[in-house]
């Protein structure tokens, strides 16, 4: 099964990211135990699981904050060597955080412009002189950023310091910043946590639109089962650092181990 078309008409391509037998330990604690899964191009892939299951650790492994003791990560069909997060960003992996990690001292526009960092190349000297290349580059990316601002409907808060924005909008600005990097793979860590129903619906729409319009592959962690089952193509279920389920939403929903993990069966 190489590429196929989903019922709603999106094309899912080959494997983009493959995580093979990852084990991550903090001292004696095994946060992730021998987990493997893959993410296909154009897919929306959800990672779910109870608190402390190792979901965020998994994202941190993918974007290079944690270096797993065992296992391999394959991206674009090549085995990835150990890299710093900034190098991984250059390969086209962007993410948002569970607790918003915006740059509080800057306004919305500057936050999103910072997202373009890896694509901008003018040197220090050119930046210092400004006229010429640095200026042209700045306006070229401003235009791209304005498209993202239009796309996420945040025109009105362009020049507002992000610290003054309500929670839901901050989440949206963070998504905009990640999109400005034009990522191949976008990792969203609980994009809808703490939102009301209306904000959740907006965010779902944006996630689906991003996937459909830019063809961005998305990996998301989410606790709202309704959202996960509605928007994701395939779901990975983690519990206590182990993988207990993997498949399309309907499969996962009927998996006995997953039901046990969520309803609480005594572990022995």
């Amino acid at each position: 099964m190489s590429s196929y078309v989903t019922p709603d008409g999106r094309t899912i391509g080959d494997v983009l990211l493959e995580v093979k037998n990852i084990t991550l330990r903090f001292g004696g604690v095994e946060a992730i135990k021998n987990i493997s899964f893959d993410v296909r191009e154009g897919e929306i892939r959800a990672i779910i699981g109870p608190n402390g299951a190792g979901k965020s650790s998994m994202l941190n492994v993918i974007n290079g904050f944690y270096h797993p003791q065992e296992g391999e990560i394959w991206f674009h069909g090549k085995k990835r060597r150990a890299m710093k997060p900034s190098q991984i960003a250059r390969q086209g992996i962007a993410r948002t955080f569970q607790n918003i990690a915006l740059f509080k001292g800057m306004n919305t526009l500057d936050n999103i412009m910072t997202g373009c960092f890896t694509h901008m190349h003018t040197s220090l000297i050119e930046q210092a002189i400004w006229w010429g290349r640095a200026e042209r580059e700045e306006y070229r990316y401003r235009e791209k950023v304005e498209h993202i601002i239009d796309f996420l409907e945040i025109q009105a808060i362009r020049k507002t310091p992000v610290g003054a924005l309500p929670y839901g909008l901050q989440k949206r600005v963070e998504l905009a910043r990640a999109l400005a990097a034009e990522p191949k793979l976008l990792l969203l860590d609980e994009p809808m946590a703490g939102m009301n129903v209306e904000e959740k619906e907006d965010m779902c729409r944006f996630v689906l639109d991003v996937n459909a319009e830019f063809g961005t592959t998305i990996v998301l962690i989410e606790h709202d089962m309704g959202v996960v089952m509605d928007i994701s193509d395939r779901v990975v279920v983690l519990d206590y650092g182990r993988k207990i389920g993997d498949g399309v939403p309907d499969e996962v929903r009927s998996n006995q181990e997953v039901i046990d993990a969520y309803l609480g069966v005594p572990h022995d």
Partner: protein
Amino acid sequence: MYYREAGDFKTSYRADQQNFPIRFDRIHFWVMMALAFGVVPFFINDYWANAVFVPFLIFAIATLGLNLLTGYCGQVSLGSAGFMAVGAYASYKLMTSFPELNFFVVILLSGGITALVGTAFGLPSLRIKGFYLAVATLAAQFFLVWLFNKVPWFYNNSASGQISVPRREMFGIPITGPETAASTKYLVCLVIVFVLGFVARNLTRGRIGRSWMAIRDMDFAAEIIGVDPLRAKLSAFAISSFYIGIAGALFFSVYLGAVEVGEAFGINNSFLILFMVIIGGLGSIYGSFAGAAFLILMPVLLKNVLVGGLGWPSDLAAHLEFMIMGALIIIFLIVEPHGLARLWAVTKQKLRLWPFPY
């Protein structure tokens, strides 16, 4: 309504991102520049140059430099005066070793040498943050002053241990040494401040400035969008030291003329520059100038009022000056912790509506 921006529409990104988006500000700025370049040089005398303008301009450069590092990149440094000493001694060695070298080239090279030294002392910032980094940079301060005191090569084995500036000319006009005219000193500093001010603005509004601010605000988030903390922090240290080195070179060659390192570049000056940054406003170009102006001009003003105006004895006035300055700094920080720049921004905000309540 005096400060109006209604009807001032922007139709291009270029117009939206210019330095002074509001027309009134733009006119204001260029009028100030016209006064500074076209009027002040004809009226300036030795007193005004030495007490007010030249130290203000030189400290404005140093404050800009420290603001780039502390205000924009979030790395605290207490080694500013030490780096100024590097600039001063670099310019001295360059001027005495290569007498034909153009003065502005000497200044630039001194800045470059200081940038290298500053980068080296910035290396600990990769591992330590906040107060701990401040203490690490304090080591730079003490080490550099000690170095310039102990190694005779730096002061060309002169008996007094001092360095004094040789006379240098440009277009037949002396620009360093005792015969330099007040207006020349002022203009030399002003030209350099003008250029460095624009460079600072350009750096902070573009890609590099945003990478610094990203590191300041949230370093791990900066990393995941591709900012390499090593390069961002070290480039901030380099640029900042470049500015501070130039300030040190000017402080020595244009302002003081002769320097003894412990006196001119002691830790007091490091604190003074840090105060200028904090009082002016962290992360603001305008604030750097405002902070430098406040801490240079206020004592002069106080002295004139107390001694000249009220006729008090000068020793009493000198002590009172310290107390009043201290009180003013505290009051300012309570009223507006974000410095004069924020105070100015708030004033402008009010002026947009004035005299109507909303």
